[in-house]
C-alpha cells in the first residue's frame, strides 16, 4: 500500500506502518517469486490526490510479475494510462459506489478480466456494511445488496476486505467469505485477518479463490519487525501458488 510515495502496511485501515521504498520492495518480491502483486495507493482514496502515474511506470518497469493497481481511479482514461504503464489489472473501489456507468464502460473497453472490484466492509450492530473512500465513508449499504450491484457490472474479480480484521492477524471472517463466494461466480480474493498459514487454508475452504496475505509476509517475530518474506518456505510451498501477496 502506498502513502506519500512510500510503502506502508495498514492496521484496520488507519494506523500505517512504514515498510520501505516501493521500488526496493518490488525487487524483493521479484526474488521471492511472487506470482502477482497488487499495489494500492491510499492517498487518492482518502485525500483525493492525483494518481501517481510516473511512480506506477517506475514500479512496473522493475516488476517481473503481473501487477494490479488500485487507488483514485475515476475515468476510462485513468485505466488506459495505468494499463499502458505496464499493469495488467486495475482495482476499483469508491467509483463503483459513485458511478456505475463508468465502470460499465471500463468493462466494455478493456474486458472483464482487467477490471477488479474491491469491497471494504465493517460490521456495525451485526450488519456487514460497505465502506468507500479508503474506509472513511459508510455507504449504509448491506454487503450482500452491494454485491448484487457489483455482479451486474460483470467485473472479472472481487477483492473482499474485512476492515475490522485488517492487520490484526487474528483470523479471517470465514462466514462472510463463504456467503460472498457462493453468491457470485467470479473469483473472490479474501483479505483481512490472516495471521497464520492455517487461516489461508481456511479461507480457501470457505470458497475464496485466493487469499490476500500481507502482515504475514512483511512482519517477522513477536515484535513485528519489518522483513518482507514468505514464512517458512517448506510450509508455504503448498499455499503459495494460490495466495496473493497484497501489501
Amino acid at each position, binding site marked *: 500500500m502506498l502513502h506519500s510515495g512510500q510503502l506502508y502496511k495498514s492496521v484496520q485501515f488507519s494506523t500505517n506502518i512504514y515498510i520501505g521504498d516501493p521500488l526496493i520492495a518490488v525487487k524483493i518480491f521479484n526474488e521471492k517469486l511472487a*506470482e502477482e502483486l497488487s499495489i494500492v495507493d491510499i492517498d487518492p482514496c482518502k485525500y483525493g490526490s492525483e494518481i501517481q502515474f510516473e511512480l506506477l511506470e517506475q514500479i512496473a518497469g522493475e*516488476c517481473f510479475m503481473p501487477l494490479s493497481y488500485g487507488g483514485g481511479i475515476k475515468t476510462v482514461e485513468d485505466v488506459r494510462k495505468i494499463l*499502458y*504503464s*505496464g499493469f495488467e489489472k486495475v482495482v476499483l473501489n469508491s467509483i463503483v459506489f459513485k458511478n456505475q456507468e463508468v465502470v460499465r464502460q471500463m468493462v466494455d473497453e478493456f474486458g472483464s*478480466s482487467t477490471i477488479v472490484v474491491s469491497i471494504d466492509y465493517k460490521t456495525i450492530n451485526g450488519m456487514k456494511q460497505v465502506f468507500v473512500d479508503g474506509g472513511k465513508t459508510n455507504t449504509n449499504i448491506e454487503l450482500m445488496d452491494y454485491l448484487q450491484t457489483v455482479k451486474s457490472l460483470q467485473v*472479472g474479480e472481487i477483492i473482499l476486505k474485512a476492515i475490522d480484521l485488517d492487520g490484526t492477524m487474528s483470523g479471517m471472517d470465514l462466514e462472510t467469505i463463504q456467503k460472498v463466494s457462493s453468491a457470485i461466480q467470479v473469483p473472490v480474493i479474501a483479505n483481512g485477518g490472516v495471521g497464520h498459514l492455517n487461516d489461508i487454508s481456511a479461507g480457501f475452504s470457505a470458497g475464496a479463490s485466493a487469499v490476500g496475505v500481507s502482515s504475514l509476509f512483511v512482519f517477522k517475530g513477536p515484535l513485528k519487525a519489518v522483513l518482507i518474506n514468505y514464512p517458512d518456505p517448506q510450509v508455504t510451498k503448498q499455499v503459495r501458488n494460490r495466495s496473493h501477496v497484497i501489501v
Partner: protein
Amino acid sequence: MIGIIDYGCGNVGSVQNMFSKIGIWSEKIAKPENLTDYSGIVLPGVGAFDTGARRLKSTGFWDALKQFVEVDQKPILGICLGMQLFFEGSDEGSEAGFGWLPGNVQKFSASESLRIPHMSWNAVDFKSPRYTDLTANNFYFVHAYHAPANLDPMYVLGTTLYGEMFPSAVEHNNITGFQFHPEKSLVYGMELLKRWNLIHLEK
C-alpha cells in the same frame, strides 16, 4: 547489444530490466535510425493490432525492421502484440502485418465458460529440444487474439491449451515470437530470454 523497440505501445521498462538482470546488454530505441547497429531486436507491445502497425509505420520503424529481418537476416524476438505483427494480418483489424509468418491472427472462439482475454499463468509445451530442458514452462499470458491455430507445424515452437490449442511460441529462422510475457514471468522468463539470446546471438 539488443535493441528494444519503444513505439508507444506499452511499457518496455520491464523487458529492458530483465535483460540487464540476466547480464545481457540492451537499450530502448525510440528512433529507427541506426537499427543495423544492433545485433538483435525485441519488438514488445500491448494493445490493438492496427494501432501497433500504424505506430510502427508512422515512426519509421516498419521499413527499418523489414531491412533488419529480411535483408540483414538478424534475429528478432516479438512479444505479445509484437509477435502478432509478424503474421500477415489479424481478425482484430484491417492493417497488414509484416507477413513473415503465414496466416491471420485470430480471436479465441467464444464459449460460455472461457474468459477472454486469456489472462493467467499457463503452460507452454515447447516442440524444439532447444527449449524443452528449461526448469519451468509456465508463463504469464494476457491476450484475446492468438496465432492461427492451423499454423504449419514447421513454424510452431510451442503450444498452449486455453479452451483450444494454439501456437504460443513461433519460430522461423531468425524470427522468434512469444505470445506470453517473459518479462512478467519471473525467473522463468529470465531463463527463456537467456536461452533465446544463447541460440540467436551467441551462436
